[in-house]
């Protein structure tokens, strides 16, 4: 519910990390600061 866990998973930004199960080869990047919309 908190959306504090937004991260970039396999290139997709603003994903709720808490709802995704980690799997082999997944690319996970932290998002620091305000979320952004890509052009």
């Amino acid at each position, binding site marked *: *519910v*908190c*959306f*504090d866990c*937004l991260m970039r998973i396999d290139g997709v930004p*603003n994903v709720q990390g*808490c*709802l995704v*199960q980690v799997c082999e080869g997944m690319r996970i990047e932290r998002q620091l600061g305000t*979320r952004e919309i890509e052009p």
Partner: protein
Amino acid sequence: VNAFDLAIVGAGPAGMAAAITAAEAGLRVVVFDEQREPGGQIYRSIETVRATRPAHLSIFGDDYARGAPLVQRFRAASIDYRPATQVWSVGAEGRVFYRAQSGTGAIEAKQIIIATGAMERPFPVPGWTLPGVLTCGAAQTALKSAGLVPEGRIVLAGSGPLLLLLAVQLVRAGVRPTAILETSFNALGALKHALGFFSAPAYVAKGLSLLRERKRSGMQIYKAVRALEIAGDERVRGITFESGGVRRELPADLVLLHHGVVPNGNLAWSNRLEHVWDEGQRCFKPKLDRWGRSSLERVFVAGDSGGIVGAIACEHSGRLAALAAATACGRISEHERDRRAASTRFQYRQHIAARPFLDALYRPSRRWLAPRDAQTIVCRCEEVTAAAIRKVASEHDCPGPNQLKAFMRCGMGPCQGRLCGLTVVELLAESRGVSPAEIGYYRIRSPIKPVSVGELAELDLPDPVN
């Protein structure tokens, strides 16, 4: 569009029980749930735990294990179950919009049961946004879904049954928290509700057994804790507080906060369901009839999302809503509905009898609900402090949470007010000297989950069916 008799949002105890009952009554049922397997928060990952790490069942205890047969019956029933799927809008015309890995979509249903469960009450204190600070529920989620046991020096703070349960579960999992900081334990205030509580013997025995287990573990307990502050720069370093008139400081690597649970209400709010303020539980809940039917004819709310009742009562309320939905769909007569509901309703009442005592015993006091410390962040998404909200409330005569948005974007971030809503209501109520009932809540609009423009574009929108 796929058409169903009944769409249920949430596969916790209320949603599962409702689905089973409705399927038995011959309804075409679809169940949407965010998680990858059924169970809700309380029975989270129970299938995986039983299949891959059964030894952990002893950590979670009987109240967790009792979810297994329910999940089995849910799996066996004739239900269109959609796991890992988020519902982002429910329309008054009975259309349910969802998104999943496979894309976005919509279905239509004659009746809808919202069973979105509970969430933890926000617990805003200085430092609660630091890495290393979680809620007790989050720690329990990690334990259930992935068998993750925390390391380092752990401090639990707050009040409520879940805090006690988690402390004991951590001990069973092999880690002993350094201390529990008890913020609210209002035995005197709860006394007048004792009769109801002691008429539900299972809850008394359970509570006492947990308290004994906690005592045996030798965990340090600080009572009547005040002025809690979590310290740290990059992450949590320690926690300071007052207890027994003494200022104390404890080093900590992990702080787990908890102040009870409240309805997870954004879906209900987004449908403009009429709500009432529950003074005992200190939160809003949808106004429901004895079947769980909301102010919208075809929308029911079952389980904790309709007001906190606890897992077993949730099942019963799910069954009641499903029976009423079956009657509304013309599958069973009113007489048959009442006949099937009788024992369920009796058991439901027995279980909720224990509630007022627990609510009063663990109710956080005003200083926790409306933080006094100026710098405490209330809206985490937009980083709005308690002081800023109080200032706008008094200087600009801000009447409610929706006007507050215009002043400071409070509640307008990605969590859509879930983590600041109740605190904002409490702050405004205090500052204006009125009841939260008069303040009201944020106007929540769908989509209640983030949806990309691309997803909206791929949505094959049917013409409305009347």
